[in-house]
C-alpha cells in the first residue's frame, strides 16, 4: 500500500514547515535572523494580515529593542508558515539544511590549507630590510613587523584564525634553542641579514648594545652561522666573530690562513702522538740536560720534602 504522496494538502505543508522551522529554532540550528532573511519585512508586509501587523507593531513599540527574535516570537512560526509563501519558506529551510549538512562550507577548507605555506615566509622576508636598526636597539620591536605580515597574506577573513598558527613554525625554524618567547624568536631571524647595513647605523646607537649580547651567545651553538654573526655584531666586543667577516670582506688573504690552520691542527695531533711514543720509550738524557728544580724559587713549595725524596 503506497500512499499518494503528491497529494500534500496545504495544511499539511504548513504543518511540515512549522515543525521543520520551529524545531530548527528550538534546537539552535536556525536563528530568527535566518528566518527574517527570507521572510523579509517586505514579504511580511505583503502577506501578513493586518491583525498580525497590529500585534507586531504593538510589540515592537512596547519593547525596548526591536530585533528578529522579537518579530519571530510575536508573529510566531505557525503564523509565518501560514501566510508566507511556501517557496520562501522552502528557500529558508533549504538554506538551513544546507548549512546543517555542511554543504555550504565548501569554501573554508581551501583557505585553511594555503596559510601555513604562504603566510610565514613573506612575514620573515620583509622584516630584515625594514627592521634592522630597531632590531638591534630592542628585540621586542622586531616582532611587530612579523606580526603585521601574517594577516595580509590570507585573503579570506575566515582564514585569519588560521594564519596565526603559521608564525610559530617560522619562529621555530629561526630559534632552535629557546622556545619560551615567540616574540624574541621572531626577532632573531630579522637580526642576522640586516646587520651588514646595521654596522653603518651602529654608531648612533651605542647604548642598547649592552643587553643583546647574552641571548645571541645562547643561540650560537645551535644557530646558523648567519644568526651567530648577526647576534654578535651588535656587541661592542666580538673579536672572534668580526675577524672572520673582515676576512670574508677582504676576500682572498684569509682563505689560505684557514687552510694553514687545518694543517697546524694535524701537526699538533702528530706531536701529541710523538709525545706519547717518547713517553713509552724514554731516550737517554745527560745530567747536564736535567734541571734542578729545587734551586728555582718558583717551584720550591716544599723544598725539604723534595730533597728528602731525592
Amino acid at each position, binding site marked *: 500500500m503506497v500512499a499518494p504522496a503528491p497529494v500534500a494538502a496545504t495544511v499539511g505543508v504548513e504543518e511540515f514547515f512549522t515543525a521543520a522551522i520551529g524545531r530548527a529554532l528550538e534546537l539552535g540550528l536556525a536563528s530568527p535572523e535566518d528566518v527574517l532573511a527570507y521572510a523579509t519585512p517586505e514579504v511580511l508586509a505583503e502577506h501578513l494580515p493586518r491583525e498580525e501587523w497590529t500585534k507586531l507593531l504593538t510589540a515592537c513599540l512596547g519593547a525596548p529593542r526591536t530585533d528578529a527574535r522579537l518579530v519571530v516570537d510575536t508573529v510566531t512560526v505557525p503564523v509565518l508558515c501560514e501566510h508566507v509563501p511556501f517557496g520562501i519558506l522552502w528557500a529558508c529551510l533549504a538554506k538551513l539544511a544546507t548549512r546543517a*549538512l555542511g554543504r555550504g562550507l565548501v569554501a573554508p577548507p581551501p583557505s585553511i590549507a594555503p596559510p601555513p605555506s604562504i603566510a610565514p615566509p613573506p612575514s620573515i622576508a620583509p622584516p630584515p630590510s625594514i627592521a634592522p636598526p630597531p632590531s638591534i636597539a630592542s628585540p621586542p620591536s622586531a616582532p611587530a613587523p612579523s606580526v603585521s605580515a601574517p594577516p595580509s597574506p590570507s585573503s579570506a577573513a575566515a582564514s585569519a584564525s588560521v594564519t596565526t598558527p603559521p608564525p610559530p613554525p617560522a619562529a621555530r625554524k629561526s630559534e632552535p634553542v629557546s622556545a619560551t618567547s615567540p616574540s624574541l624568536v621572531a626577532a632573531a631571524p630579522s637580526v642576522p641579514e640586516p646587520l651588514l647595513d646595521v654596522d653603518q647605523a651602529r654608531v648612533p646607537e651605542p647604548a642598547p648594545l649592552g643587553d643583546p649580547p647574552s641571548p645571541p651567545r645562547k643561540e650560537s651553538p645551535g644557530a646558523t652561522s648567519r644568526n651567530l654573526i648577526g647576534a654578535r655584531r651588535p656587541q661592542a666586543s666580538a673579536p672572534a666573530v668580526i675577524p672572520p667577516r673582515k676576512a670574508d670582506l677582504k676576500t682572498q688573504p684569509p682563505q689560505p690562513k684557514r687552510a694553514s690552520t687545518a694543517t697546524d691542527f694535524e701537526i699538533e695531533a702528530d706531536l701529541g702522538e710523538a709525545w706519547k711514543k717518547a713517553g713509552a720509550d724514554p731516550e737517554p738524557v745527560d745530567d747536564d740536560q736535567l734541571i734542578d728544580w729545587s734551586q728555582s724559587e718558583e717551584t720550591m713549595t716544599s723544598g725539604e720534602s723534595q730533597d728528602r725524596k731525592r
Partner: protein
Amino acid sequence: MSIEARQRWFATMMESGLTQQIFAPADVLRHATPEVLANNLPPELMSKVLAASLAAGAMTPERVLETVTPDVMSRHLPHEVLWDCIAAAAERAGIAGGR
C-alpha cells in the same frame, strides 16, 4: 551545531513529512534504498526489520518504517539521504518552486 541537534531536527522533519503526507514510506525507501539501509543500519535493526517482515509475511515500506522510525533514520542514515527525500517530495508537491 551539534550532531544530536541535527539528528533531532531531521527526525522532526521526517516525522512531520510522513505525518503530513508530504512523502510516504515508499518515497523514503526510494532514497533510503536497501543498500543504504544495509550499509548504515546496525545488525540488530536489520534483524528486527527482517523478523517483522517474516512475521507479517511481507516486507512493505510501511512495515520497514515501523522499525526504521524517523528517529532511527536520523540516527543511522546519512542526513543527505533524508534531505534528498524531503527535497524530492517538496519538489514533487510544488513546494520548492512556490505556493
